[in-house]
């Protein structure tokens, strides 16, 4: 084993230890378990955005739509169809992923700023639907009247509804599943092709790679991950909000990815942690927290464009 790969393993182990013990070290530091759960879910969303942005080089600025659809899918399932947490998560993931897959066919030929603009605009369609269709979605007030259900394994039950710690571990298991899938895909030949497209699309095309099809698959996968994260988010809050589909939410996700470091797999999780904690803190001390978040965007873009991880890696080198 080389030094680099063993260092990688140590970092990986450290990340998982930190995540596994989060409920125990959060509280003494002034946090609370629900905050850790939110970081995990939003971090998963940011990693899904980065799956496309950082590894395929395609900027989608409308990913909140798939996130929000996942949330509504899970919420509506729990409210009207079945009182089952796993079913709700699957339904949310399918709703977000399938809508993304269909719209993706319209998008794949666009690049760069054009792709970003079209994704923003299409994302807003779902925002308006959630906003206008009050009889189903609750409109501006959001979707209420559902709650995550305890997990029943036959032999024993896991009460994820009232015990914050057990719920955290449930989310962590889901998180691990999706992140594992992401890592597996990125290490596969398909994932390498994604990176090849990011690095040089024209050359990839000359090598006979069907670029559009690959981008569509990457986009669709990232929509499924996003829907999954959204479904978890509905379970976190027992609530789904049309603002979760709004393009400003997409901006937050992209920001988390950039702030953590787009070129690294774990960067977006770090970005999400910083972003969520900062937002939580700022909104508790000032009503003008929006100005500070805006300022954060500007400062990160101007001074830390490679993100926190990129910054550390460069200063080490």
């Amino acid at each position, binding site marked *: 084993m080389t030094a680099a790969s063993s260092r990688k393993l140590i970092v990986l182990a450290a990340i998982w230890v930190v995540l596994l013990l989060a409920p125990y070290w959060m509280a003494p530091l002034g946090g609370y378990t629900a905050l850790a759960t939110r970081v995990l879910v939003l971090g998963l969303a940011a990693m899904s955005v980065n799956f496309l942005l950082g590894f395929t080089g395609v900027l989608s600025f409308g990913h909140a739509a798939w996130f929000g659809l996942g949330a509504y899918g899970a919420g509506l399932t729990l409210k009207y169809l079945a009182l089952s947490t796993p079913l709700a998560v699957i339904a949310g993931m399918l709703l977000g992923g399938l809508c993304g897959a269909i719209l993706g066919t319209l998008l794949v030929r666009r690049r760069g*700023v054009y792709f970003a603009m079209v994704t*923003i605009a*299409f994302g807003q369609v779902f925002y308006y639907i959630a906003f206008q269709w009050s009889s189903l979605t609750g409109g501006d007030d959001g979707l209420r009247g559902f709650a995550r259900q305890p997990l029943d394994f036959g032999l024993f039950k896991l009460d994820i509804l009232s015990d914050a710690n057990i719920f955290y571990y449930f989310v962590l298991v889901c998180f691990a599943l999706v992140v594992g899938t992401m890592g597996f895909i990125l290490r596969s030949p398909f994932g390498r092709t994604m990176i090849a497209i990011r690095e040089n699309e024209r050359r990839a095309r000359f090598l006979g790679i069907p670029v559009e099809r690959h981008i569509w698959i990457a986009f669709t996968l990232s929509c499924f991950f996003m829907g999954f994260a959204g479904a978890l988010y509905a379970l976190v809050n027992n609530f789904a909000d049309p603002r979760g589909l709004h393009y400003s939410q997409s901006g937050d996700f992209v920001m988390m990815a950039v702030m953590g470091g787009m070129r690294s797999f774990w960067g977006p999780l770090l970005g999400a942690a910083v972003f969520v904690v900062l937002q939580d803190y700022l909104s508790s001390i000032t009503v003008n927290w929006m100005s500070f978040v*805006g300022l954060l965007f500007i400062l990160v873009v101007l001074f830390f464009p490679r993100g926190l991880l990129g910054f550390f890696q460069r200063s080490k080198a």
Partner: protein
Amino acid sequence: MTLLLLFNITNGLIVGAFYVLMALGLSLILNLSNVINFAHGGFLVIGGYIAYAISPYVGFWGALLLAPPLTAVIGLVVERVLIRPLYGRDPLYSLLLTFGLAFMIEDLTRFIFGPQGKPFAIPAFLAQPLSNELFFITGYRLFMVAMVFVAIALLFVLLRYTRLGIRIRAGTLDLETVAALGINVRLLRSLNFAVGIFLAGLSGVLAAGQLGLEPTMGTGLLMPSFIAIIVGGIGSLPGTLVGGLLIGVASGVTAVFFPAASEAVIYVLMAVILLTRPRGLFGEEGMMG
């Protein structure tokens, strides 16, 4: 029914003309600098509130004359300090920066002027309906359209006949060659940005007279402008003009038959255009896509 339809088409054209004004500014900046200016709605708000702040001293007409250039000056400063360092980098960064800037402008406006809406007085003779029988359109709405046309005409003259305008158009096609010919590209981008922000400021004053002022007024107007650009075709200013009018009319006509969808229809229009003609109505293949 015909009358109602006619009324809504006219109304749609008026609203569309307004989208055009916003979208042209966005389009100018996007074409030359490859920057999606998310803060464009924010500059609209700045223009509106400047007009509100100075109108007690200079009146409506003075505010109409002064607010857009003042907004453009602010735009110039923003471009110099914040956006210039990002040229040549991934467009993602300017997008995120202007996104944060939009947050700040909205919040600071709320901080300075308060969250409540503010009325913006317009001259009495413009506020009256033109005719009580046919159209309930106020003189102000027609005045808005007239102003939009004047602005578009001036923009056309600027781009067609002045040295600056010819350079802007050349830069849109091939900035590298323009730079190689010894033209100061940095200055060109700054001035072009200022022209775009001038249009946003003008939109702000006009919108203030019609809708009143609110810190969030820019956000709602940003998305239709995006769609106007996409429908018309990125890279084409005439396309933006047609796109804006088209979505205005489309949402006006839909309001007659199915009011709940009047906002959604412009997205449907966009989807149809992207399916049948991916580059947009007037866009050129391979230019931006």
